[in-house]
């Protein structure tokens, strides 16, 4: 009987197991199927919960134009703060060549869009010469404070603080002992009782002064950046290590850190009326409740003006109301300011309806600027930009290319691809890229010569976003081809090139002759010319030790300082020894161009291109399998627009947009004066100013005549450079190196 019962139970147990397994099987199957299923396209998050309607409400950026006083064309904002119903800000006229006259204005901007402007004579009375590091703020005590810096007779920096307790009718300068030790005030704020909290460039921490300017105490802060915000007895600043925002409570002497990775570019803090702290930097605007523990993202910097590379935040203010309104002033490279308001729009979609993906190996500022500009016209489209080599994953180029190829083979991939470092020719051959002709036709006019350089059989699969131009400044000789360079190599500097630098220069600018070599003899002929150039330019295995210019440093140390860029030693020797220098320029404001142009005017010589060659900076292609062709076309047209291309006269490369190029070439900055030192004592130097109109016109003519894009193939260059360097150093002869070079070349080509 017992046995029967146990057998029954055992059987039951077995059945239970089977039953359980049978129940689990469909569960696992459904988990497998639905777990692997693709996520629903479009909005993720709120839409799933609320149904098909997407969540609404977000902060939108809108530019603010200040009413300019009569006769003033541009203003520089020197301070901003919240007032009842809006913000007030202080400005000074700016001509683009510096501050024109010591006239100061106060603007009051109301949330309803009205604004007023009045002159502030009390500021002009003290800040007569414009000064530097000027800033005007209203303190929590209601008084107006102005700070500026100048120099004493011995040339030491001095900081000044001015206070007006009657709203600008009269003002007095604070003369307390705490002020005498200040050199350059980088930020400040006043508390309700008149105490001043000051960040000084020369000090290790924040200084707290009493209402008379006498030092009371010091607080720790970051030396890298300074920003101060006051709320009652609380002071917000950047923590010493730059890894948090620190809140000091002066009532009990305590402090608390709110973790935040402070970026390299300017960061600004300000408190709202409810005590919430706002932080603005290049990544956007973030909010932290006074009793909270998290930062809330309010504005995404990747689609806002603060995210543009050449924009530097100068002020942040929060105007109260039903929802806080944010005001940001931005300093442009030309010295003028732009003002933006961020207001909550309850009707704007919280998440974009459409997402465009842009891929590149290397970060491209033009793309970043275009994303900001595009988000203003298409707030329903979010552009995600992935510059893989900038990511913290630590992958190699090959890893990222393979990951991209996997996506492309699966019929997916980004909508827009920057082809720098990617196998562009192969993508065209495989039909990955879309013909851009119609899109470029619909965009603002681009340089016709550049467009033609990329047309293949009437189709346009890629266009550069900007250009780098290799230039030659020479008193004699020709340099358009390798033959000409070999013939004129005696004119080159004898102290400017390491074997590697010369090898790279030749491969970059003249490598095509080798890449197209049909046999070993052609490779040998190329190497013989290289050897001849190396001998004429005095480049040997020991070149590194012989390069010293006048810095008194061994060549190895000098090269650590200036890298493999041979521009500085070339310029140093062009003054009295050599007759030619070869260099690459990317913008009118590029240092190489400024010094090169200066050398042409001061030392003589003809400026020319290397034949009609140019370097594409950011080669743009569109994935034929992209999911949003209309938006992609619109974004590409934005990339090619003058507004985006002409953002900076100092970097990024020369615009391919014809109007932007003309504007860049017309741009002048008389404030620029620079010097390149060739010795430690700064006695031996070369100085230059902004390139003259004639030189700029010359460069424009060169650019408009460029027809041949230089091949950008880092793998091939890397493959051949070692052989070339061995040949230059003398470890190999052209005869012995030629079979190896041709063997590598043919293996590469036969793949």
């Amino acid at each position, binding site marked *: 009987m017992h046995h029967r019962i146990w057998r029954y139970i055992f059987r039951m147990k077995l059945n239970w197991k089977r039953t359980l397994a049978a129940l689990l099987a469909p569960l696992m199957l459904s988990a497998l199927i639905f777990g692997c299923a693709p996520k629903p396209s479009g909005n993720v998050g709120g839409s799933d919960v609320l149904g098909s309607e997407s969540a609404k409400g977000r902060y939108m950026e809108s530019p603010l134009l200040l009413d300019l006083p009569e006769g003033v064309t541009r203003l520089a904002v020197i301070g901003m703060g919240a007032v009842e119903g809006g913000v007030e800000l202080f400005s000074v006229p700016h001509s683009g060549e510096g501050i024109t006259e010591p006239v100061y204005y106060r603007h009051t901007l109301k949330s309803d869009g009205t604004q007023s402007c009045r002159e502030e004579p009390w500021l002009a009375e003290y800040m007569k010469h414009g000064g530097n590091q000027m800033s005007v703020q209203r303190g929590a005590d209601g008084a107006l404070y102005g700070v500026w810096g100048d120099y004493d007779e011995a040339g030491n920096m001095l900081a000044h603080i001015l206070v007006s307790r009657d709203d600008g009718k009269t003002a007095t300068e604070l003369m307390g002992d705490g002020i005498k030790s200040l050199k350059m005030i980088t930020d400040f704020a006043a508390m309700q009782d008149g105490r001043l909290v000051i960040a000084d460039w020369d000090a290790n921490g924040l200084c707290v002064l009493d209402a008379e300017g006498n030092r009371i105490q010091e607080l720790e802060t970051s030396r890298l950046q300074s920003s101060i915000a006051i709320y009652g007895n609380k002071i917000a600043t950047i923590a010493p290590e730059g890894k948090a925002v620190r809140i000091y409570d002066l009532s009990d002497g305590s402090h608390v850190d709110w973790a935040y990775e402070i970026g390299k570019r300017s960061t600004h803090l300000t408190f709202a009326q409810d005590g919430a702290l706002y932080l603005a930097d290049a990544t956007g605007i973030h909010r932290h409740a006074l009793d909270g523990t998290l930062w809330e993202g309010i504005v995404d910097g990747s689609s806002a003006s603060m995210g543009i590379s050449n924009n530097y935040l100068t002020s942040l203010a929060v105007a109260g109301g039903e929802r806080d309104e944010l005001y940001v002033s931005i300093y442009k490279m030309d010295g003028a300011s732009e003002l933006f308001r961020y207001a909550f729009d309850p009707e704007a979609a919280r998440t974009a309806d459409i997402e465009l993906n842009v891929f590149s190996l290397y970060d491209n500022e033009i793309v970043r600027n275009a994303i900001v500009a595009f988000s203003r016209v298409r707030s329903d489209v979010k552009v995600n930009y992935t510059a893989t080599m900038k990511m913290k994953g630590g992958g190699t180029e*090959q890893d990222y*290319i*393979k990951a991209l*190829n996997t996506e*492309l*083979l699966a019929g997916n991939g980004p909508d827009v691809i920057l082809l720098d470092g990617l*196998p562009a020719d*192969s*993508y065209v051959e*495989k*039909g*990955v890229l879309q013909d851009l002709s119609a899109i470029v036709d619909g965009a603002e006019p681009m340089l016709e010569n550049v467009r033609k350089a990329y047309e293949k059989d009437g189709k346009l699969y890629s266009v550069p976003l900007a250009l780098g131009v290799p230039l030659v400044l020479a008193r004699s000789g020709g340099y358009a081809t390798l033959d000409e360079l070999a013939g004129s190599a005696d004119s080159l500097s004898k102290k400017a090139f390491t074997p590697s630098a010369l090898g790279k220069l030749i491969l970059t600018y003249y490598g095509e002759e080798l890449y197209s070599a049909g046999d070993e003899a052609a490779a040998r002929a190329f190497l013989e010319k290289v050897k001849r150039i190396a001998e004429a330019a005095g480049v040997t295995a020991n070149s590194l030790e012989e390069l010293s210019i006048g810095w008194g440093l061994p060549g190895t140390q000098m090269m650590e300082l200036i890298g493999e860029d041979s521009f500085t030693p070339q310029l140093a020797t062009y003054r009295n020894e050599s007759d030619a220098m070869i260099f690459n320029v990317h913008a009118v404001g590029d240092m190489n161009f400024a010094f090169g142009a200066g050398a042409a005017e001061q030392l003589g010589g003809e400026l020319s291109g290397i034949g009609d060659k140019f370097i594409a900076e950011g080669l743009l292609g569109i994935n034929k399998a992209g999911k949003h062709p209309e938006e992609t076309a619109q974004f590409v047209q934005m990339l090619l627009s003058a507004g985006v291309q002409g953002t900076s006269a100092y970097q990024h490369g020369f615009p391919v947009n014809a109007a932007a190029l003309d504007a860049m070439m017309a741009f002048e900055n008389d404030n620029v004066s620079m010097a390149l030192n060739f010795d430690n004592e700064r006695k031996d130097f070369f100085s230059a100013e902004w390139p003259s109109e004639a030189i700029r016109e010359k460069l424009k003519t060169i650019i408009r005549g460029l027809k041949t894009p230089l091949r950008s193939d880092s*793998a091939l260059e*890397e*493959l051949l450079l*070692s052989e070339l360097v061995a040949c230059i150093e003398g470890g190999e002869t052209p005869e012995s190196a030629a079979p190896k070079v041709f*063997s*590598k070349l*043919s*293996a*590469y080509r*036969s*793949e």
Partner: protein
Amino acid sequence: MIMRVKRKKRHSEAGMALCFLAPSLAGIAVMFLAPTADVLRRSFLSSMGDSFVGFGNYAAVLVNESFLLAMANTGRFLFVCIPLLLTISLLTALLLSRTRWCQNLFKTTYLLPLAIPVTSVVLIIQAVFHKNGLLSTLCEALGGAPADWLNSEYAFSVLVLCYLWKNLGYNIVLWLAGLSGISESLYEAARIDGAGPWQRFRFITLPLLRPTAFMTAVLALINSFKVFREAYLVAGRYPHRSIYMLQHLLSNWFTNLDMQKISAAASLLLFAILLAIAAGQFITSRKEESA
């Protein structure tokens, strides 16, 4: 009646076996069979899979200089390395099995290279075989000329050496396991019958090691493909042509989005491997028949 019961039992056992095998079969189907089928399909299509090209990809691959070079190098590497590794490791295992003195110490020492991460191995290779490395310095000290060992014809020997150094210990352990499975009484009986050491090795050890030899050879073959990691990290995408292996080529093709060539090459390799297996089976069956 008994027959029916047996048949029923067999069916139930087969069903049970199938249930147990199902997960791994599914895994093989998803991870191996389906990709293989996709590769075969792609080998007849253009790179992006949008047009049929027939045997065009095969024709292109078979006349591709790089493919022929990579095939030749890979074949040469396998042909040199596997016999060398099997022979050296067997001889070392025999020596170790005959001595009790520090056997474990030797085994551990030989196994150490397996425990060293690839990046460290690469550093060691570069420190020793770089143009200005240890070996060149030694050559100079002895009056010889330094050489760029990794960027010359020596590169192949360096890679072979690296492979042997890394895999020797593992194979020794496998051989030792096989040797320990041979009964000592067989050797004793052979000695009584007057067999010498060579005869005992030839007629007892070698035949009884055949299963171990098969497994060791297969593992050596698999490990030989892993040497690509070292070759890639030491010499990059385009190493000296003597160590330019199939993996280099396939990796470079993928970088250039030449999926059609990869598919055709992989199909050809698969065909070659299947052919080799079939030939092996044919030879074995002929031997068994003649025996």
